């Protein structure tokens, strides 16, 4: 697991209160991990803080799984 993936997973676990073992790379935050729409906003804010980057709204809307977040942050994190 990449460093970025590990950090993203940690944020998801902390924020959504789900067990790490239940998170697959293609688990959807809303459909599979019980997030509501505001949780996804909060997750994106937490990613921004952890990785020191700004995720614009149109990109944020496309981050629906762990994999999406890791892909985006790998390309854009500072």
């Amino acid at each position, binding site marked *: 697991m990449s460093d970025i993936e590990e950090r993203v997973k940690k944020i998801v676990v902390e924020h959504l209160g789900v067990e790490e073992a239940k998170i697959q790379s293609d688990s959807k935050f809303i459909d599979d991990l019980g997030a*509501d729409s*505001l949780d996804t*906003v*909060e997750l994106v*804010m937490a990613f921004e803080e952890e990785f020191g980057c700004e995720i614009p709204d149109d990109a944020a809307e496309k981050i629906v799984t762990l994999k999406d977040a890791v892909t985006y942050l790998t390309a854009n994190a500072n």
Partner: protein
Amino acid sequence: MFKDRKLLVTGGTGSIGNSVCNYFNNNGCKEIYSTTTDMNKINSNQDFIKFKELNFNNIENSNLEELFDFDIDYLVLNAGLNRDNIFLRMSSDDWNSVINVNLNSSFHILKHFTKKMVKKKFGRVIFISSVVAYTGNRGQVNYTASKAAISGMVKSLALELSTRNITVNSVAPGFIRSNMTDKLNDDQKNAILEKIPMKKLGDSSDIAKAVGFLCSENANYITGQTLHVNGGLALI
């Protein structure tokens, strides 16, 4: 009552904005921010308020992240503008500037601050509406449209944010004693008083107290509502 809480009131140099700031200051709120379009309008007795210069007619060109690099607990959207004229004489500029200041600016301010409120899982948002949003008023098609739009915003936003302990309400003042009503002549004043069951104009402090109530713990379970403060002028 508001100890350790932070307040932002837009349009703090107007009579209602100033009263809200005073009320919160007198009730323990020690961090009070406001906005004004003109820093020269600030009175000497407003030195407890941290003012930011902001033109709501042109808010899209302002860097809100930089201007408001802090979070708040209470947001009072009070800044307002009226450009009255009968509809057939109302210019596009009269229409656009009133919609920009009274409605569109709220979108931008709210985008900025509700994000922070979601994060801290607490927030009290109060819009200042107006009785004329509910009754209509000749010469105020633009103003009433902007204020009536707020009532839809309050309800939808209340629904969206309720799971994060953020309540969204509005206060709708009737006729309030202000610089504007001071300029009316006796006949005009009497005509207004005739319509008000309490036979007196409201005071801006009456509005401040209603705002204070909606921000207080007494109103924790109230959201998506409009509190009408109008001496019985319109019973809605």
